[in-house]
């Protein structure tokens, strides 16, 4: 399984490479400098080196605390 590196405050994950330059769509994309909007567009395009970070399930303790309330 490819290693991932979080970018943009953990909202996206770079897959298998250090965030940097990828040749793509006639030019280059620098994954260390992209905006959230660009990241979203790349993910929508099916760009293979980036994905959205999956939302983590709520912690058990937090869930139990909610149950008590």
């Amino acid at each position, binding site marked *: 399984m490819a290693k991932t590196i979080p970018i943009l405050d953990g909202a996206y994950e770079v897959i298998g*490479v250090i965030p940097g330059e990828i040749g793509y769509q006639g030019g280059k994309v620098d994954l260390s400098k992209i905006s959230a909007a660009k990241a979203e567009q790349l993910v929508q395009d099916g760009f293979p080196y980036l994905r959205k970070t999956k939302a983590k399930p709520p912690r058990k303790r937090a869930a139990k605390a909610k149950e008590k309330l």
Partner: protein
Amino acid sequence: MNIYDYVDEQNLEESAGLQIEVAIADYRDVLTWPVLPVLSAATTNEGHVDLAAEVFVMKTGKKFQKFEGTLEKNAFASNLVGPRRAKSFENSLTVAVSAVNKSLIGWIRANRNRPMVVAFRPLGMSQYIFLGYDGLPAEVDEAMMDIPAEVSGEKMTTFTVRSIALPPLFIDAVPFTAAV
């Protein structure tokens, strides 16, 4: 494998020529190769050669390197060779720089016998075409450094990378950043 219609499409960005930058990786630095299209599963003509979002998974710390040629000097050719019913592809990419210097001569010295993968983009095309695949590396076929006698002459370093058997293959992206 079926036969499909070919219908000419107008491409407003159609042009001859290649982008000046070529991506080059050592064949042995590729950990996992992009999966080739399954001929029997292709449902279009391009489906036989388009790897789309497949990726080159490089060994840790490895990546494609850039080689910048001179505008309107890089060239590509692909030919079918071989006898009837046994036709095969022979592809060659010529990269040319209008210069002769120690960096270029050093590059030729270091890479003249190196199995490699090269990727390049024709003008007006968003995908890369790459040469060299698992078991079928591309190699430098010939190189030339020329300093003409006349000051009006064109100084030039040229090398040609050749691959065989497989057709030119198309892929969406090439990593210039190191694998982790």
